[in-house]
């Protein structure tokens, strides 16, 4: 059994986009803040009540809201952020679809939205419009009205199935 006191820090290992990071964190430190401190700025904070989804990352194969996960809980986990989706400067089909269909405006929700779409298309390679809307119901966008985001995800799904 491991016990870390309230004034102590604990060493954790996070594998983010293939990079291994060893950090020392207070137990209370949220995963979103630790990821951002490590330089993964695409993981964003948009609220304090786990609603907006701007902090969404892939953690051990599931999309999670990293603002509602303690960094210590993620010790040993494999994490994917938006930065990890681009390979050698080439855009992933979801990223490509987002620019083709004007699915981003201010961009603040975009990283979380794309990671959630990534998870969604992994679960369901051919989602209906209703399934897409339900699938991103945990990601708030104030700029686009969602219509182009849904179109982009549908287009990306089609491209990925080909």
């Amino acid at each position: 059994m491991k016990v870390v006191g309230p004034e102590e820090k604990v060493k954790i290992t996070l594998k983010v986009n293939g990079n291994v990071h060893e950090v020392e964190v207070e137990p209370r430190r949220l995963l979103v803040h630790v990821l951002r401190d490590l330089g993964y700025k695409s993981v964003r904070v948009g609220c304090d009540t786990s609603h907006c989804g701007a902090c969404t990352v892939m953690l051990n194969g599931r999309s999670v809201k990293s603002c509602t996960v303690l960094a210590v809980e993620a010790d040993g986990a494999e994490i994917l952020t938006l930065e990890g989706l681009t390979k050698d400067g080439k855009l992933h089909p979801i990223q490509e679809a987002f620019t083709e269909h004007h699915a981003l405006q201010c961009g603040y929700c975009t990283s979380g939205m794309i990671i959630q779409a990534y998870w969604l298309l992994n679960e369901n390679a051919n989602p209906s419009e209703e399934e897409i809307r339900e699938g991103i119901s945990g990601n708030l966008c104030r700029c686009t009205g969602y219509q182009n985001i849904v179109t982009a995800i549908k287009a990306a799904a089609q491209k990925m199935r080909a």
Partner: protein
Amino acid sequence: MYPPKFGYVIPDTIDEAVSFLKEHEDAKPLAGGHSLIPMLKLRIIRPSYLVEIRRLKELQYVRKEGGYYQIGALTTHYDVVKAGIPLLSDTAARIADPQVRNVGTIGGSVAHSDPAADYQAALIVMDSSVVVYGPKGSRTVNFADFVKDVFTPDLKQGELITEIKVRDFSGYRWAYKKLERKAGDFAIVGVAVLAKKDGDKVTDLRIGLTAVSNKGVRAMEAEKVLIDRTPTEDLIERAAETVMKSIEPPSDLRASSEYRKRAAKVLTRRALTELLR
């Protein structure tokens, strides 16, 4: 937004978890964290330690045995959905949003005892029970008795929920109807219905509601209106009306008491019509 300081414990066995929790009266168990961590961020609780139990793999399972489902407390809502459990899976699918369902657990939800939690409507009608493990060993409590009041489960310091048991309602028809302002919001009212027909008669009917009281309620008077009867439009209307009259829901920012009652009637009627006619 920023949790206050707390210590962190990673137990290797459930006994280590339980004994640490018993010894430290301000320590709290951490499962999925999707009720606990938001409270920490609001600083409305200040535990001395969090005891992380999510790595106890022995609490993650879904088994079917002797006409019952046994669901490990650390089973995520996502996994409850995938398990295809009559009524319960469809109810779990309406909790919050996909990311929350990926992490939140049924044990955590039941231990939290939120009066508007979706599970409360289903569990109250599924002959369910909660298995609790503590320093003195295991005990099993009926779900109806387990939730005592808002955010008040029958859990003493040092005890953990290890399993939720629900009856297997294969052969029944079911529906969970949730009224929310928008996707992911807490229910204004949630109605869970299990129904069995033999020919054109209703042989069993169970109606559970959430967000209308300090915990999930079962509308037994309404059920009696239709059991052993042929479900006509009039009887369904009467049953729905009985549901409405049997609840005294709270008023809050999301809805007035009066609206909750009307909505409960509409959702009940809709569920009964879908399932019985």
